[in-house]
């Protein structure tokens, strides 16, 4: 809207606080409370309440069936010690970290950014096609997407084997982690691409131009102009992608955690423990451990963001 030559408005210097959280619409705390209340009530009953209940379950030996279903016993932190001393849990956590870093942080974020960066200057059908394909992969329901990948990587009649001439290569058995990483990139990259492409469009062209005029290379422009400008987006994106990747259950539909637990990431491990294994109490405990890990990661990101801001 406003042209790029706006002078800083007078009178704003003494009042930098006004930039944020100022009650510009005359909402008032009471009315703000009313605005927030319906959402909070729904969240309270259908999210917070089950969550607290889940925490409680995590301290019992509760099962969905069997004797412990009839009379679950309080076991305190036993589930936690059981999980934390189980090598399978640590293995699963390790797999999850690999999965999150490779498919979420490196894969989705970098490829998403790369795509946003690449298509920003092209127009017409090429851009529409590339963006359309990436977005379609994101919109297609998970159960369908997983089926498509099963067809793609099938050992006998899969498309990949047909194209590469690697008849009989069992990708999902020999390279299961790579497969679900690629799968998750395929499914999720669109979000990062969308977020970054709008972030990039908001970077003032004048800044890029002045960097260009002093002879900055593409890489330098990226480092000195683009990244500082879209720092907030990078944080939002990384945070959400990390959380989502941490909790995604979709890879189960491709490899079912196999072969032999090689893709048993935490969400799958919890499912296996809680549903086929029937140990809902233990599953709840592991869920809480996972939540705490997520919390640590989120705090880490926020800390990094704040540290940057101070500089």
């Amino acid at each position, binding site marked *: 809207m406003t042209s790029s030559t706006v002078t800083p408005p007078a009178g704003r210097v003494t009042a930098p606080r006004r930039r944020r959280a100022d009650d510009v619409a005359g909402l008032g705390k009471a009315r703000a409370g009313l605005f927030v209340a319906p959402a909070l009530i729904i969240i309270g009953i259908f999210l917070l309440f089950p969550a607290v209940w889940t925490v409680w379950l995590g301290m019992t030996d509760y099962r969905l069936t069997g004797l412990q279903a009839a009379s679950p016993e309080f076991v305190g932190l036993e589930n936690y010690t059981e999980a934390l001393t189980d090598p399978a849990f640590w293995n699963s956590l390790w797999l999850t970290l690999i999965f999150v870093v490779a498919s979420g942080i490196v894969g989705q974020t970098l490829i998403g950014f790369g795509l946003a960066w690449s298509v920003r200057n092209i127009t017409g059908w090429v851009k529409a096609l590339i963006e359309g394909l990436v977005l379609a*992969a994101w919109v297609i*329901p998970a159960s369908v997407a997983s089926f498509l990948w099963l067809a793609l990587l099938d050992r006998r009649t899969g498309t990949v084997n047909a194209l590469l001439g690697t008849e009989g290569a069992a990708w999902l058995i020999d390279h299961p982690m790579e497969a679900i990483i690629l799968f998750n990139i395929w499914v999720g990259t669109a979000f990062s691409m*969308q977020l970054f492409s709008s972030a990039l469009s908001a970077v003032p062209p004048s800044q890029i131009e002045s960097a260009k005029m002093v002879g900055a290379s593409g890489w330098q422009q990226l480092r000195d102009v683009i990244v500082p400008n879209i720092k907030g987006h990078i944080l939002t994106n990384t945070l959400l992608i990390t959380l989502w990747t941490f909790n995604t259950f979709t890879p189960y539909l491709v490899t079912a955690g196999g072969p032999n637990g090689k893709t048993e990431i935490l969400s799958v491990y919890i499912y296996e423990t809680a549903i086929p294994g029937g140990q809902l109490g233990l599953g709840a405990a592991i869920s809480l451990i996972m939540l705490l890990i997520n919390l640590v990661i989120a705090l880490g990101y926020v800390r990094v963001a704040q540290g940057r801001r101070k500089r």
Partner: protein
Amino acid sequence: MTATPAKTGPVTSVARNRTVRQYVARVLFAVLMTLVGVLFALPMVWLVLAPFDATPTLSLEWPDWTLDNFARLAENPYALRSIGNSLILGVGTMVIVVGLGALAAYAMSRIRIPGRDGILYALLLLSSIVTGTAAMVPTFQIITQLGLINNYVGVLLVLAGGILPTVIFILKDFMDSIPKSYEESARLYGAGPFRILRDVVAPIARPGLAFISIWTIVQVWGNFLVPFILLRSPDLQPAAVLMYTFYTESGQADLRLISTFALLFSAPVLIIYFVVNRRYGFRFHGGIKS
């Protein structure tokens, strides 16, 4: 973008080198883009072709064209209805979370509440465990106690509860980036907060709202567990649940039905997505602000 050689005199070697380098870069770029396009397109080809094949297999082959699969699917008493059910659940959840989420995000964006960001982060984290399997029993119990089993209201509320934190989180980011003078201006003319939200903030945040609406529909569209455990009647089940009925007792997929249903199951979200995208264009604003 394009290299223009010096207009007068012979083309210097520097210029020529640059031209060559740019040319190579452009070819590489084109190759890379094609590769990415192919990678993303490849899995989808099966989705488009298999439903029209008389005997689909997992392999990608030129179909033996037929529409029989669609006819067979149409005979299934639940299949088409389930897609309608998915729409009801998807749009219903969307209306709830976008409506309430926008109100909450707006208030949180404009009023300083101590620890506001902390609450948001906490809810965001919680939403990740509660939508998983661990909280299934509590959720089922609550809905049973509320008498909302086999009732869309229960499903909508549970889905909304899980999705709202993320919606508020993202929408608040959008709202933070809307210039305050719009609202001040409306306020001077006597518009109340609700009016301001409706007349000014919502239309300006429309790309954000459009994005979050689609995101919500996509989330609900693929959700199996919540509708499955909370609904009894198959007449009410959405497509994500119905998709699993096309497997036999021993887990074999009926490829003719699965492939056809997969296409019909995916089509509405794809169409909704591209229509909305065309009409409103998705744009994020802002990031997490200082």
